[in-house]
Every structure is written in C-alpha cells, then in structure tokens.
C-alpha cells in the first residue's frame, strides 16, 4: 500500500522546476484541472469559497511557472488593488499623483526585470564599458500582468469603472491562471462582473470549450512544435547552411508556427476559462487573411493591439490633434516601436516594431490615392485584387517576423541575404521529397487558415451537435495524437519569453 503512491515523487512533481513549467498541454495540468473542475462545481453556490479555490489554484499554477516570484505577483496585485481604491477616493492633484505613481511602479517593475540587461548591453557597446549583466529570473507573464494593471488604473482614473473593493475578486482578475502567463490581457471592466455572477455552464458552452481545447492542442503540439523543432529552429540557427528557398520556407513555416503556438495557447486558455465560467477576451481572428497591415493588427493579438490603441495611441493622437495627419504618423510610429520593445529586450524587436510602424504609416498615406486608382480601374472590390493584397500583406508580415525570430541582427541579415541572393528555387522538389511531413504541414496549415470563415463555423457547429460519447472519443483521439506528436520534451509556448 505504501508503494501505491510515491509521496516523495508527488512532492517533487508539485514543486517549482525552472526547466519544467506547468503548461496546459501537460498531463499534470490535465489531472489538476479535472480536480479543479470538480471542486469548482461543488463550490458553485458559495461565491467566496469558489473564488478562493480558483485563487489558490492560480497561486499554485504561477508558483509552478515562476517559483518564489509568485510573491512578487501577489505584492504587485496588492499594490494595484490599493492604488485603484486610492485613485477613486482621491481628489484633484492627489488623485493624479497616485495614478502616475501607480503607472510608474508598474513600468518600473516591468523595466527592471525585462530591460536592465538590455540597457547594460547598450551601455557596454556604446560607452565601451564592461558592466556585468544582472543574473535574474524574469517573472513569467510580467509583460501581461503589468499591462493588465495599467489598464485597470487608467479605467479607474477615467472613471469608466469603479475601483474593485473586494480583494478576492480583484486578486482573481489579476492572477487568474488561465491568462496569467500569456494573456489575453483582459480588461477589468469585462472580467470583474463575471466574477460576481453566479456560476453557470450549459452544454453548448462545454462543447465550445472542449472544441477550443482540442483545436489549441492540435495547433500547438502537432503543427507549431513539429515545425519549430524539425525545421524552423535548424534553419534560423545557421541560415547560411541552407539555400534561399529553404530560408524562405522556414520563414513561412515560422509565420505558421508562431500563429499556431500563440493562438493555440489562447484557444486552450479560452476553453479552460470557459469551463470555469469565464469568458476571456478574443485574441485572434485569422490574422493572415488581412488585406493590409492595419487589418492584420485588428486580427493579431487583439488584446494587446486594442490595449495599445486605447491607452497609448489614442491619448497621443488626441494630444497632438492640432497637427492633423501628422498626429497619426507620430502616434503610430511611437506606438509600434513601443509594441516592439514590449515583445522583447533586443534591437531586433525594436526594429520589428518600427518596421510595422513604417508599413502602417505608408499604408495610411497611400490609402486615398490607391482607393482612387482602384475605383478608376473599376477593380475596387475585385476578388483578384483582394487575393493580391492578402498575398502582399502576408509576405510583408513574414519579412518582418524574420527580425522577430532571429536571435541576433546578424542572423536576420543572413536569412535575408540567403533569400535575396541565393534562392536556388530548383531545390524545392528535393526539399518536398526529403521532408514530406514538413511540406505537408505547411500546406495543410495554411490551407485551413485561409478557408472561408463559414467552414470554420460549420466545423464548430458540427462538433457541438456531435453526441457526447463521440465528443469524448474525439477528445481522447486528440490527446492520443498530441501525445504521439510529442517526440521530444514539452515545448514551452513562444510567447512565454515576452
């Protein structure tokens, strides 16, 4: 009997291990989550108990991701909770001071953990110093939870929502495990009312949640991880060992990998949260179908792009409105450069963000002449033109993703050089023959992505209508397939690093 459960092993399993973060697609998470669903159901009628259980689980989840840094998360939650109330009670200048202090504290926290070594690196290279980088563990999800905090403080300051007085409810908003590590960056005014509502879950919601979890699992484990480990990582490690066509295909594969990785995570997060009675913000809407860069940003990482739009772009744009069109130009460039910096402490990310800013400005300035030209030619809503626009937009985005993926500017340059000066398109048939699974995954992945929305809705509806036993079989099959595809260790999500 004593040997039935190895408590020593169980204890180790529940402890923080930096090399083995708790991710949605792990069996430990699956086991813990089923237990949580049961307890959530049992405590459904007692709100305080239910919220407390969800909080405890969230603390455990974050501890498994970041160890003792969970204390920093809790301290940050407490500070923002108090400042929110302070802002609401404050009058005149004290209100403003408290608000700016709160925003500055969050930015300091983010800046210290994420950018200290970046600035040291810049200082070393520009001032020829040799300052030692600071050894520290970056708290996972810090970019996400500090942005959540800032949006909350702004909304309270704008008086578009009341400060949350119930500390348990606020903490659940702040540290909820489903969106703590990689978003969505949920808004307090959307999430908090849900905490106060009675727990309800109907069959339809369960079906959609299970569908999302299956979809997310397949996107992440079957497509993203396979392409990443077997193709993208190898090419981006040493681009000069591969021809231009392989570099180009690896770049297309990376566009798909990043989308499947991040949106796969989001699908799972939305599904997991939905089973517990919470609707999180949508984050993706078939981004590569966009016909312009501006449209891409309305479809990609929506909780971040709308955050940047509401709390950074619009205030800047309004503040400079006397400048007319120039206000848009300046506000776009600053917003997207900051968007780049938010994604990572490195010159690649800054350039990636600035490049998106420049592309957006170009799109904005040429919108009217292009519109006049298309009208004159009578092709304004022509489907061929739309396909052309989507093709160009997708290639521009992929071109920019190279900067995002390459671990240094030199490697990014190598990828570009290989593509533009050493293409060797004749290698393509050999590549397809040599790596049929990779080629098939890229083709199938993009084919599904570009299918009309009504097809996607049809599949979802079909799943909802499927009898329960068959749903269970599909879920089991998805878990089996993903387990088979786990040819190596579990791969953490790409956006974990942000």
């Amino acid at each position, binding site marked *: 009997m004593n040997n039935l459960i190895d408590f020593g092993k169980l204890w180790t399993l529940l402890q923080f291990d930096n090399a083995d973060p708790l991710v949605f697609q792990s069996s430990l998470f699956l086991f813990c989550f089923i237990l949580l669903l049961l307890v959530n159901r049992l405590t459904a009628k007692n709100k305080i108990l239910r919220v407390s259980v969800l909080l405890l689980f969230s603390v455990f989840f974050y501890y498994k991701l970041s160890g003792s840094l969970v204390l920093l998360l809790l301290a940050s939650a407490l500070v923002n909770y108090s400042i929110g109330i302070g802002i609401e009670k404050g009058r005149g200048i004290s209100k403003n001071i408290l608000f700016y202090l709160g925003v500055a504290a969050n930015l300091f926290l983010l800046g210290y953990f994420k950018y200290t070594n970046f600035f040291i690196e810049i200082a070393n290279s520009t001032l020829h110093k040799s300052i030692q980088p600071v050894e520290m563990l970056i708290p996972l999800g810090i970019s996400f939870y500090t942005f959540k905090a800032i949006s909350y403080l702004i909304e309270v300051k*704008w008086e*578009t929502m009341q400060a949350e007085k119930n500390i348990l409810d606020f903490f659940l908003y702040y540290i909820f495990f489903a969106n703590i590590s990689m978003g969505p960056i949920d808004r307090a005014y959307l999430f908090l009312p849900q905490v106060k509502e009675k727990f309800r879950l109907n069959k339809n919601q369960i079906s959609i949640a299970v569908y999302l979890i299956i979809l997310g699992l397949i996107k992440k484990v079957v497509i993203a991880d396979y392409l990443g480990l077997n193709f993208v990582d190898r090419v981006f490690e040493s681009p000069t060992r591969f021809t231009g066509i392989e570099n180009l295909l690896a770049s297309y594969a990376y566009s798909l990998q990043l989308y499947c990785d991040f949106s796969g995570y989001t699908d799972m997060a939305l599904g997991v949260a939905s089973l517990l009675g919470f609707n999180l913000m949508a984050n993706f809407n078939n981004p590569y179908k966009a016909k312009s860069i*501006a449209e891409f940003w309305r479809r990609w990482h929506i909780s971040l792009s709308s955050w940047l739009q*509401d709390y950074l772009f*619009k205030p800047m*744009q*309004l503040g400079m*409105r006397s400048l007319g069109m120039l*206000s*848009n130009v300046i506000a776009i460039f600053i917003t997207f450069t900051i968007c780049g910096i938010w994604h990572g402490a490195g010159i690649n990310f800054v350039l990636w963000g600035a490049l998106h800013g420049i592309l957006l400005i170009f799109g904005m300035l040429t919108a009217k002449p292009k519109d006049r030209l298309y009208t004159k030619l009578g092709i304004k809503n022509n489907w061929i033109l739309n396909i052309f626009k989507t093709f160009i937009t997708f290639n521009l985005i992929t071109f920019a993703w190279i900067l995002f993926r390459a671990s240094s500017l030199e490697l990014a340059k190598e990828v570009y050089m290989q593509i533009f000066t050493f293409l060797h398109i004749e290698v393509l048939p050999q590549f397809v023959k040599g790596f049929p699974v990779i080629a098939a995954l890229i083709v199938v992945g993009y084919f599904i992505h570009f299918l009309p929305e009504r097809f996607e809705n049809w599949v979802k509806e079909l799943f909802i209508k499927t009898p329960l036993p068959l749903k269970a079989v599909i879920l089991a099959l998805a878990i089996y397939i993903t387990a088979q595809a786990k040819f190596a260790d579990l791969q953490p999500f790409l956006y974990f690093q942000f």
Partner: protein
Amino acid sequence: MGIIMISERLKATILKELKLDDYDIQDTMRADEVPGWDSLNHINVIIAVEKEYGVRFKNIEVLKLKCIGDLQKLVDSKAENKS
C-alpha cells in the same frame, strides 16, 4: 442603462465624415463597428463633430467614450452648457 437616441444631426455628421450614404447607427455600437470608423479616422470624426456643434472636447472626455451613445451624451452636455 436606458436607450439613448442618436440625433439625426450627429448621425449625419458622422456619415458625412465617413463618406457613408446611410448606416443604422445605434447607441450601443462601438466606433469600430461603423464601416470606415477606425482608429486613424477617429480623430477626423471627433473634429467634424466639434465643428458641427461649435464645441471643443477635452482629451479625457473623448478617451472615456465607450460607445456612440456616450458621444451623444457628451455632445448633449456640451450643447447644454453652451446655452
């Protein structure tokens, strides 16, 4: 929250700025639900409304707007203060 009627004057100003012949603008709609009213055009719509009513909105008043009904309320309150 009760229904806020979007006045014909406000609707006409918005439609003219967005070059739309007609569109059913409801109070609960967000700006981005109206064709052409994106974040870049937002500033032009706001300036057009200011001109039409001869008022000037504070930045924070515009930033607080969550839906078109909020814009109607803001316009009404400004017009009231003027008279």
